[in-house]
């Protein structure tokens, strides 16, 4: 067998599997790739010609372009009329399961929650959407006020002294923090500090980003029994070469490291900085402040806890927060307020200058700000409690299902937890990747398994945020129960899933082999010539 197409016997069985009622059928438009819909000569009149007087005055502008820089062959873009384009992308949107459509409890570490529509509307107003970033400060006082007010609230929530929203995602924020760490040690003439310590159940960017910034990475691992790193292990990693510690707290496993206070002390004593990745802030907001427990740097994902929409994978914001003594290294500009006016301060001589263009994703600042306003401190506390209650309810219910276990069962879990289908796999041959495909036949979003390294076998990492209802949780659990039952009675259904989604199971082969990988239609056409 070298292809993934089913044999005749299996295909017939597959058609049977497709008839099994699950209460769900995804939209299947069999929508071709847009190039296949192209009709030569279709044109949409979007932009007018330049005025007659302009054209006659400037003449043939193209002749100004030196011949070697003139485009000879027009780009082979598809040609369709507007209604066809509308229909095409509308259909594709209908074949996408956003948060609003249904249950996204499965996507752990993503903190999927409701993005208030009023915030999206406000962000589309021309007083933000039609603003150029380089406009004189006097014309953007409203935007600067929003950014500054948000900064105040984020400082309050984190216990830090200054913020920047320039990084355009969580990983980008961790990278900025790694650059700040680098700048800090260099400014003190401490060139030998070239090691950053992190943990394998923190987000991989806690290793990848300091690595990109030139640091050597020392990985620690959660103890098999406790789920914590352990002080002895941390001490083995700390030395006079330690530049800093980058940890996610609580971990992606939902475990709060009970000794993290000790680690921070040890790292500080050794002269290193501590950076806390607060992507998992949703369960601990108003109860934990990174600054209070000793963090020198940290970041929030505004598109997670703070409700800004995930946008199909961005635009996002990794808002980085620092203590006062590191403020001078922040990327510029920093928003300041003198009591009557807001300013953009570019004059930070030791700044790392820029990690991205302009100020960051300003619309996310507005949406996060509006969300905090809508919740109030009381609402934030409630939301965090609900994240934790929802998650623990989910844990109790899922563990009643045959074949499902949980990692570190003796540890309490906060905003999420990591489960394991190891037992299911041993007993039925159905593992987590199979299970994950079958649950989607019941009309829920897939779940997040685990980042690398895969420490817990056959992992399942859901996260039930504050905006999830008990009914949704019950439904999610019920679906797991059904699929577990299927695994024990007729695993073929699960192993050949999905059956009721927009497409069937992907053949991973062309995606792993660089010789077969194709990322553009033109490359695909060339391969088939």
């Amino acid at each position, binding site marked *: 067998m070298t292809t993934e197409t089913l044999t005749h016997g299996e295909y017939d069985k597959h058609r049977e599997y497709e008839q099994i009622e699950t209460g769900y059928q995804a939209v299947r438009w069999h929508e071709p790739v847009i190039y296949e819909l192209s009709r030569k000569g279709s044109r949409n009149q979007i932009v007018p010609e330049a005025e007659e007087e302009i054209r006659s005055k400037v003449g043939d502008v193209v002749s100004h372009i030196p011949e070697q820089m003139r485009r000879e062959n027009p780009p082979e873009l598809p040609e369709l009329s507007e209604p066809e384009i509308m229909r095409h992308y509308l259909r594709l949107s209908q074949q996408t399961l956003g948060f609003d459509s249904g249950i996204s409890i499965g996507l752990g570490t993503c903190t999927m929650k409701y993005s208030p529509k009023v915030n999206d509307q406000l962000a589309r107003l021309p007083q933000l959407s039609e603003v150029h970033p380089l406009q004189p400060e006097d014309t953007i006082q409203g935007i600067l006020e929003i950014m500054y007010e948000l900064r105040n609230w984020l400082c309050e929530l984190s216990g830090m002294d200054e913020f920047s929203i320039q990084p355009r995602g969580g990983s980008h924020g961790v990278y900025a923090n790694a650059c700040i760490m680098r700048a800090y040690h260099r400014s003190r003439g401490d060139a030998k500090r070239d090691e950053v310590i992190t943990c394998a159940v923190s987000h991989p960017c806690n290793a990848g980003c300091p690595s990109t910034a030139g640091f050597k990475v020392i990985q620690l691992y959660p103890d098999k029994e406790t789920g914590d790193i352990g002080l002895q292990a941390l*001490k*083995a990693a700390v030395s006079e070469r330690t530049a800093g510690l980058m940890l996610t707290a609580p971990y992606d496993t939902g475990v709060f490291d009970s000794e993290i206070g000790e680690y921070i002390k040890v790292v500080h004593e050794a002269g290193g900085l501590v950076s806390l990745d607060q992507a998992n802030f949703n369960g601990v907001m108003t109860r934990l402040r990174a600054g209070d427990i000793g963090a020198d740097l940290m970041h929030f994902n505004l598109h997670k806890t703070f409700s800004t929409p995930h946008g199909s994978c961005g635009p996002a914001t990794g808002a980085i927060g620092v203590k006062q003594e590191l403020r001078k290294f922040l990327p510029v500009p920093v928003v300041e307020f003198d009591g009557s006016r807001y300013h953009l301060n570019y004059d930070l001589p030791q700044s790392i200058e820029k990690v991205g263009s302009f100020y960051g994703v300003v619309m996310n600042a507005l949406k996060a700000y509006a969300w905090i306003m809508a919740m109030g401190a009381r609402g934030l506390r409630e939301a965090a409690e609900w994240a934790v209650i929802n998650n623990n309810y989910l844990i109790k219910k899922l563990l009643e299902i045959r074949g499902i276990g949980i990692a570190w069962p003796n540890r309490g879990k906060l905003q999420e937890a990591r489960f394991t289908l190891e037992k299911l796999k041993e007993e039925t041959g159905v593992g987590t990747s199979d299970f994950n495909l079958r649950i989607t036949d019941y009309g829920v979003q897939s779940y997040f398994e685990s980042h690398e390294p895969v*420490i817990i076998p056959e992992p399942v990492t859901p996260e039930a945020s504050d905006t999830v209802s008990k009914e949704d949780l019950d439904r999610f659990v019920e679906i797991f129960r059904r699929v577990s039952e299927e695994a024990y009675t007729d695993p073929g259904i699960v192993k050949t899933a999905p059956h009721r989604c927009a497409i069937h199971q992907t053949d991973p082969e062309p995606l792993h082999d660089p010789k077969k990988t194709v990322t553009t239609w033109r490359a695909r056409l060339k391969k088939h010539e």
Partner: protein
Amino acid sequence: MNRESANGKEKLGFIVNPLAGIGGRVGLKGSDGLDTVKKAFDLGAVPFSPARATEALKGLSLIKGEIDLITYPFEMGEDEARECSFAPVVLGSIVPGETTAADTKRAAQEMAELGVNLLLFVGGDGTARDIYEAVGDRVPVLGIPAGVKIHSSVYAVSPRRAAELVKEFLRGRAPVCEMEVMDIDEDQFRQGRVSARLYGYLSVPFERRLVQGAKVGSSGASESTKAIAEHVVDLMRDDHYYILGPGTTVKAVGDELGIDKTLLGVDLVHRKQLVGKDLNEEQLLALITGKNTKIVVTVIGGQGYIFGRGNQQISPRVVREVGKDNLIVVSTQRKLVSLNGPLLVDTGDYELDESLSGYIRVITGYNEESVWKVEY
């Protein structure tokens, strides 16, 4: 070698060692030798293998029509195959009820000659050694443990998991890696000085998903081991000697240096040149006494030993001469995580073992280390 039958199907070799693991439960050491077997049955032992075998074959029922199952007669595979409605190709001949290691070896050999894509076997620790002696790493193999838990990467965790892995492999989605075969039964390791020798390496498929740096079709750990090797070489100093222990990850260091490092032995390197090959304890001491030396070792065997299994040439005297601060431990992160427990040391010198225990740094990539616990 023709790896596909004329009918386009994949060939799967299937060997059952019907008596594997029989002795253990009733307190007998090993199960080779017909006398031991008879004694075991008299003590009430019940064979494990048949049940394991059928469970694995059941997990393969979905692809029954697409493979040619090639097996040996009666209780060496044929019985289980027919029970699960396979139509096997049966090779060779045996004396039913009196099978020995020789039968296993013959079966493996004949199946290798026939060009099987994968050799699936049910057996105990000794069965892997028999198969190694018969075919080496010429054919990919995968073991299903019969009865006793075996800490060896040659064996899948359970029959069902083995079936899944077989399917992945036949679909071209599971890479293969060399896995160590040790010369003693690790779970029957008794007190006293019994040395565990690194017997050889078998080529075994493993689950792609668990691996970093794995490309389909190539040796699974090649990406990360290359990074580790580059890092070790970049750290090497001209005024130092380097003792390179056995194992594939250390061999990668050799490859990076462009030298022909032995896979199973202990070599010595100086100024990036090979100074001694497959050395024993005395030879090592003669070459390194009084010199600045570092030892590069990796994890040998499924239980996680960095000293005491397969590299006894790096004896307590050698380690003390080098100094325990001059140890460089290398391993892929995948290997460490798969141990699901600490690294182990068993040099035979209790005080040395104690001093080596605690937490150490392991090189797991280029400019990347992992902190891992070491126990004795």
